[in-house]
């Protein structure tokens, strides 16, 4: 998960001692991972930005406790998944899927229309998955993590990763197929 372990270790050490510049470099290197994971978990770019902010604030506060034997990206993924799960728990029950759009308002209207349609379908299907299965699916499909890495991030055995992914894909396949049938009818 890490590109340059030695350089990164130096940055982490420096940031842990309070060097904001080193922390900025870490943020720059890992920002998209955190944003993508949060967006996948929550189905909303705005909420993903907020979660990413929270994740990096937590990372800054707890950097002195970070165990350098583990992967820094894995540590951030774990904070991201946990923070996103907190948001999902706190999210109002009446938030409809229409409000959750994984589409940026910065895109051109045509692009928005095309991407919105497909994204909304897939995102609605993902949102229907239980949070645990969703986390495993997002880490696999969005972040391309191996089963071992997902197991480390979610702190579960590899067998559980396998079963969660299997369940998530089966449920997603059924949900998308059902939705396709409805569209055709």
């Amino acid at each position, binding site marked *: 998960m890490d590109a340059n372990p030695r350089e990164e270790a130096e940055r982490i050490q420096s940031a842990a001692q*309070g060097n*904001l510049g080193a922390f*900025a470099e870490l*943020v*720059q290197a890992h*920002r*998209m991972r955190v*944003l*993508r994971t949060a*967006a*996948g978990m929550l189905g909303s*770019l*705005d909420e*993903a*930005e*907020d979660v*990413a*902010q*929270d994740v*990096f*604030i937590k990372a*800054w*506060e707890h*950097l*002195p*406790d970070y165990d350098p034997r583990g992967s820094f990206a894995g540590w951030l993924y774990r904070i991201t998944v946990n923070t996103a799960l907190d948001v999902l728990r706190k999210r109002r029950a009446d938030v409809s899927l229409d409000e959750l759009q*994984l*589409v*940026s308002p*910065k*895109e051109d209207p045509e692009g928005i229309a095309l991407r919105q349609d*497909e*994204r909304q379908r*897939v*995102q609605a299907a*993902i949102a229907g998955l239980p949070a645990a299965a969703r986390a495993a*699916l997002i880490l*696999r*499909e*969005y972040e391309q993590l*191996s*089963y071992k890495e997902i197991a480390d991030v979610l702190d579960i055995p590899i067998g559980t990763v*396998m*079963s969660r*992914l*299997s369940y998530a*894909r*089966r449920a*997603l*396949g059924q949900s*998308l197929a059902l939705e396709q049938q409805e569209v055709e009818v």
Partner: protein
Amino acid sequence: MQDHPADTHLQLYLDGELDTDAQRAIDAHIAACPPCRHKLFACQRMCQRVRRTVPTCAEFLSEGEFWGRLAASLPARRRSRWPLVPYMPPLLLSVPGTLWPGVIALLGFLRLLMGLGLLPSVGRLCTTRLIPLLAHPVLEQSLYSWAGWSGQEVVRFVLGGWTRMSVATQDTLILSIALFLFLALFFEVAILYIGWVVCWSGATPSYPNRR
């Protein structure tokens, strides 16, 4: 491969989590088995659909904006943390665990020395100090007055029971009370520590710069 691979095997194959031999075996099976090929392609297509929804960098705030917001929200000082916190649970378990036998042995040894007459009896020492202690004005004005007792009544009652005991029993009783106090102190420290850790780890800072 004669039998169809299980769905979990197909999933592992799709995710590149199988070893080379198993991967080759499934390759061969897929080439010869249209239903499994269809199943695999369907799963692959679905995964690709999910991957196509991955947001791109351009859809989020720019790096500068993101950092600007984050830098403004970062607490100026990290919350200070006692460096021994991570070691406290093992310390709490091991220190009393180690001290317990020592304290019991020490008290037993003291009791032996008292029994042999090599140390003055704590029971006798207490007897001489018990009357001024029980008749202390602070107790008279607080506990006794609240309970409706007089100091003399309490002294008479306690001394009556105390002097009926043998000196050996008095010594044992005093040492047992000391042991109980040691234990109570440990539990108090443990409860305070657990309470503190729960409050400390459960505290969530407020982030004023949220959107």
